[in-house]
């Protein structure tokens, strides 16, 4: 790796301590992510929910950093936190005030929904504890962007191009649904 003196390599103890530190950070950010996601789901106020979503998605970005996926983390903040959520907030705030205030969510079908999600949660928890996880310490490296670019233009060329079509379809669809056609009755 360029720009890294050889004597800078962490010793075994240091490496261990780093691992512990990143474990602490991991759990902290997990609590942030899951906690604000839960707050978002249970909140009855749509503005509060949108703000909670910001924290949740930022937490996910931090988890990406811990996985050495710095580019994905930056994109996550840029696209989700910076773009989509600000748009949602604008949408909420620009609509008339009493409309937003009256826009409260209600919960229906409490029993079947909680039974079903409880069952799925039990299944996933069981999978989590029963599976034999192999833990890999991600290699410390720079230039994930280079790798990413190479992969997008080689192995993942087809999905990458189709993603372009997908976004185009989404834009056309949003336009068609939101504007009134001139020859529409």
């Amino acid at each position, binding site marked *: 790796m360029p720009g890294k003196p050889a004597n800078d390599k962490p010793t075994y103890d240091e490496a261990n301590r780093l691992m512990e530190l990143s474990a602490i950070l991991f759990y902290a950010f997990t609590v942030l992510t899951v906690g604000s996601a839960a707050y978002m789901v249970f909140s009855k106020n749509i503005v509060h929910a949108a703000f909670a979503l910001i924290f949740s998605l930022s937490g996910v970005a931090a988890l990406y950093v811990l996985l050495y996926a710095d580019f994905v983390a930056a994109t996550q903040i840029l696209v989700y936190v910076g773009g989509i959520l600000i748009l949602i907030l604008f949408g909420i705030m620009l609509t008339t005030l009493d409309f937003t205030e009256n826009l409260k969510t209600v919960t229906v079908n409490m029993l079947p929904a909680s039974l079903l999600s409880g069952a799925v949660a039990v299944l996933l928890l069981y999978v989590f504890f029963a599976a034999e996880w192999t833990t890999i310490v991600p290699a410390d490296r720079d230039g994930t962007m280079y790798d990413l670019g190479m992969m997008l233009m080689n192995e993942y060329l087809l*999905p990458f191009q189709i993603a372009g079509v997908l976004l185009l379809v989404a834009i056309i669809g949003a336009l068609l649904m939101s504007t009134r056609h001139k020859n529409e009755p």
Partner: protein
Amino acid sequence: MEILNDMLLYLPAIIITVAGLIVMMVDAYTKNATMIYTVSVASLILALAASVYGLFGPTVDIFYGMATTGGTAAFGTALVVAATLFVVVLSREYLTSINHNFAEVYTLILFGTVGMIVLATANDLVTVFMGLETMSIALYVLAGIVRDEKTGIEAALKYFLLGSFATGFFLYGIALLYGATGTTRLADIGLYADAGLIYWAGVGLLLVGFFFKVSVVPFHMWTPDVYEGAPTTITAYMATAAKTAAFVSLILILERALPLAVEQWSGVLVVIAILTMILGNIVAMVQNNVKRMLAYSSIAHAGYVLVGLAAGTAAGYSAVLYYLLAYTLMNIGAFGVVAYYERHKGMQFNSVDQYAGMGYKQPFMAVLLGIFLFSLAGIPPFAGFIGKYQVFAAAIQADLIGLAIVGVLASVAGVYYYLRVLVFLYMKEGTEEIELTQAGFPYRSVLLLLALLTIYFGVLPGGLSELLAGFHQGTLYSGTPLP
């Protein structure tokens, strides 16, 4: 130059993508509706020729193993493109008559078809996902283009919300499978017979996502409302092309990624197939709205397809492909005639009582509807019969005798509601005064062609059956050129 070669093998999707972009540009600059329609139809004919040519090409992996050509994938591509071609021709006249002939519809149909081709040729779970989503988003919008009807908005919203929910399941399934096997490539996942509980959870969630897209019980709740609310020719598109693409992709996944788990998923498919056939047929019987009846009938037909898949054999897979062809032909035809009746009185004109006495007013259309309904009911000598026969025969060969018996009984029950429409058409006196105008020439010719194909594949299934059987006999990467 490998990329160029891959692109050549992927020509149908590329032609249609380019056509979609051209249609967008034409719409932006000239708004020439005739040109938009011509470009769409011409590109679909070209793509159809390319994909039929691909049927006889080699089975190879392209784009670094992200997609596959030849065999099942090529057949799926050809079927999807053909269905889209028919739907586009029918849509122009129908949408004009209900004042919703927007240029965006053609762009969305073309891009949606690209998504379907990607889905039907996918050889990697990432590609499966991209294709599925491109297709779905185009369909969500298409379902809701008639916004001045309450049912149209309901259809779009319901489809969108439930579809996004199913996508979540699907994506989580992919993630768990990746966690269990460390790869998203179908053939590499296929090397694992059992990778612990996480593997099974992944397979389960993946199948749930697919079950939703092909609308089988108990994941069918959205289907009747969406099929009823969407414009009728678009409903035909959703019920045929989209289902074909999803089923072809399911065949590729079952055959390549889960060949060693066949016992387990076969058991699941048997249960789902029985539920789907029974519920689809029984609920279809009590429907008075013809479009809703066809929606439940399409649920029942998805059940018959699952019978062939549950067999998990080469015969089962090729039977399913044949069934998808028959189903596409007769279903587009039936929806086409329903759309023709509908346009005289607006989108609510679908009740079976309103069909009373119409059989003698435009005899040509009524006879065509009769052919399609007889074929849907599985009565010889139409394609629907051969499809059902092959599917049930495959199930019996695979020792799923109980499943085949339930299937036959369910399809006998199905005869009732198909023939009921014909009884109203011919044997009841109409109460309403209605003048039926002649449909345009392209409209009539497409329906006639569909009827002739329905009869042709019902009388002479031989050549195609042999071709389809050839797809599944060799090993996966044999690469043998087909006849």
